[in-house]
């Protein structure tokens, strides 16, 4: 056996940065494959083919939209620079949301940290590698989404557009640096006990805030919900800096200006390196603080003097409600969905009492948000059972237990959506009825999909629920989109709603057909 090769590849000095980097990359690659293939290695090839077809399709769509724009010649005037800078800021807020979540996880997830921190290897190196891998993975995800636009632009207008990938990497590094500083700031202000929950909520809020903020401005100033209406409005363009301002250099970099891209990359690299250098020594300390919290935290509930007399089904519902209300992931996800409902709520408020068609805008957003939320709630209630043996060995039929869980979700959904529907009914009863029907259909579809694809898991696996079934994930997304579009069109009085409704039914039928048969 060669002395320069180990089971994991060529020899690299153990404990070095490169050694940790290879370890992280191996784990990240296998995790990604597992997510894509749902844990089945045989599916690797199918995943590769599917991914290739998907990316090729996106390139075709990008070509369709970009070709006329680039053929006409793209000039970096103020309006374009504002639009590009706005889009970059929007992307940055989304990236910051992801990196904040990943950095928090790096501090709190035990996995192999106990092993590494108990070894003589320097924890600073682990931190540096983990932070860099967060930046790279976020850059890779964003690059995957941006690739069709960048590649097609490079094909039509020249290879200088490929410098835009540098912008993606620079933004990923910058967002990671900001996320690390924010997390350490949270540790200092709130302590290890509260940082995880606050960071999770913050991650959800940061991702949504910029988009929602722009939409709110659009609604209040222009009466439109589109963020591009704000970017191209006189209000913004007239106040924008001059064309030669340094503030535009990220936008110029995105346009494929090599010097701007290199500058952006250098500055971001320096920012991330500085943050790692400053904070790496505190990594081990904070991880230990986080570990101490996860083992010893005491959340005290109110002292009870008796139990409530309830039916078996209601006992199940009460348990579900208590667990849903105490789930930090769900709290952050729900908060995010509620934030997305602010713009339509604002539209509703501004048109209160007026007989307008604005419910056509409100309806699809509400249906989409509730559909997504219902999917998460349904997974938690149906598949995320932490004590399956207890429930199965209880004198309640499996059907009754499942029904009670579904009732618990439906009641939560109804409580969330009712204020919107009641307010909408004051504007238009017909619109409220259509929206209510759309919401009910989307929620029922999401719950049905979770029922068909149920697989027992711990609630803490909520974040990884998509790995259980790709089909269920896509079906949930397609059904939500179909019902949202159908509801929006129905609210606008378009007959095309029927076509989308039929498409929604086809999605559900195909999903049911693809679902694993057996005991549900």
């Amino acid at each position, binding site marked *: 056996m060669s002395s320069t090769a180990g089971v994991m590849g060529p020899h690299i000095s153990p404990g070095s940065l490169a050694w940790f980097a290879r370890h992280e990359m191996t784990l990240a690659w296998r995790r990604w494959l597992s997510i894509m293939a749902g844990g089945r290695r045989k599916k690797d090839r199918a995943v590769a083919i599917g991914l290739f077809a998907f990316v090729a399709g996106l390139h075709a769509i990008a070509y369709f939209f970009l070709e006329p724009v680039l053929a006409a010649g793209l000039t970096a005037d103020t309006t374009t620079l504002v639009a590009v800078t706005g889009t970059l800021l929007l992307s940055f807020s989304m990236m910051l949301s992801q990196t904040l979540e990943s950095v928090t996880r790096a501090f709190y997830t035990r996995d192999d940290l106990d092993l590494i921190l108990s070894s003589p290897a320097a924890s600073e190196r682990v931190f540096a590698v983990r932070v860099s891998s967060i930046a790279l993975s976020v850059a890779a995800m964003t690059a995957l989404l941006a690739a069709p636009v960048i590649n097609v632009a490079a094909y039509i207008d020249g290879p200088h557009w490929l410098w835009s990938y540098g912008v993606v990497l620079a933004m990923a590094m910058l967002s990671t640096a900001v996320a690390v500083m924010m997390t350490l700031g949270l540790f200092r202000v709130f302590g290890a006990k509260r940082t995880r929950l606050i960071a999770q909520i913050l991650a959800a809020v940061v991702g949504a805030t910029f988009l929602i903020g722009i939409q709110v401005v659009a609604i209040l100033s222009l009466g439109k919900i589109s963020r591009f209406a704000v970017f191209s409005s006189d209000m913004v363009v007239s106040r924008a800096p001059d064309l030669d301002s340094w503030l535009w250099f990220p936008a110029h970099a995105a346009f494929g200006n090599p010097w701007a891209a290199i500058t952006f990359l250098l500055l971001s690299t320096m920012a991330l390196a500085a943050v790692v250098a400053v904070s790496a020594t505190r990594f081990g300390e904070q991880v230990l603080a986080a570990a101490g919290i996860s083992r010893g935290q*005491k959340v005290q*509930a109110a002292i009870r003097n008796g139990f409530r007399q309830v*039916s078996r089904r209601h006992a199940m519902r009460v348990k579900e409600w208590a667990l849903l209300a105490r789930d930090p992931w769900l709290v952050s996800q729900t908060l995010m969905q509620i934030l997305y409902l602010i713009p339509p709520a604002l539209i509703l408020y501004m048109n209160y009492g007026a007989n307008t068609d604005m419910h056509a805008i409100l309806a699809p957003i509400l249906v989409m948000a509730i559909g997504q939320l219902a999917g998460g709630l349904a997974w938690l209630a149906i598949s995320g059972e932490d004590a399956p043996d*207890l429930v199965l060995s209880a004198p309640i039929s499996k059907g009754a237990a499942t029904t009670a869980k579904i009732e618990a979700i439906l009641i939560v959904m109804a409580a969330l959506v009712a204020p919107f529907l009641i307010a909408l009914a004051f504007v238009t009863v017909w619109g409220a009825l259509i929206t209510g029907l759309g919401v009910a259909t989307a929620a029922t579809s999401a719950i049905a999909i979770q029922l068909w694809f149920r697989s027992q898991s711990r609630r*803490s696996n909520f974040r990884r629920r998509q790995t259980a079934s790709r089909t269920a994930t896509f079906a949930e997304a397609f059904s939500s989109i179909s019902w949202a579009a159908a509801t929006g069109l129905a609210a606008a009085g378009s007959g095309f709603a029927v076509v989308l409704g039929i498409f929604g039914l086809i999605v559900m039928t195909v999903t049911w057909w693809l679902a694993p048969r057996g005991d549900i």
Partner: protein
Amino acid sequence: MSQIVPALNIQALRKSFDRPAVDGLSLTIPTGEFDALLGPNGAGKTTTLRMVAGLLAPDSGDISICGVDVLADPIAAKQILAWVPDEPMVYDKLTPLEYLEFVAGLWGMDATRAFERAQELMGWLGLAAHANERCEGFSKGMRQKVALAGALIHEPKLIILDEPLTGLDAGSARQVKTVLRRLVSEGVTVIMTTHILEVAERMADRLGVIANGQLVAEGTLDELRDKAGQDGSSLEDVFLQLVADDADANKELAA
């Protein structure tokens, strides 16, 4: 003359996965006994007990608990049964008291009686000081005791425990053993699986040895010694002899 109904009666029970896990097992356990089921890993102990608890459907065979047919009337059977798995399954975000309230609700107990019973059990198991703390910070031993309290709150007639003492410190193990012996003295039947032979030897009235999905021996320790032909031997010697005999018999059968 009325016949005494056994706490558990299993007849010709079979369950196969890729291979037979339980292979025609028959077992009768009288009321008010403490029985221990022993066997090597993969012998079929847990599979058997999961079928008794209604967590797995058998391929064939009959199971009755205190005269109630588990397959024909599972709800009635579950009403008088408690199952405690080896891995304590409690809800991290509930407190022990909330967990017990949920379990009492699932078993349809009277709320006043359930609350009294919960206080009693938490006192017995040393959980009273933590009654209103969420379980997420609990050690495995604490979680095991919460799960046990949940199993006992509805005053079952038959309690099945799968490796109940694994992961418990000496103090917690003593508390659990004391509670279980107290219940047996009150007429409750307890069946547990364990790999800790000393515990089985000291606590159980009768022992059952399962190997290759079959009951190879059953009785008091003295009866097992007779069967193994090892007078005065420890349970460990007897157990290893019985399992080895069964393996030899299977080899001969295969040959």
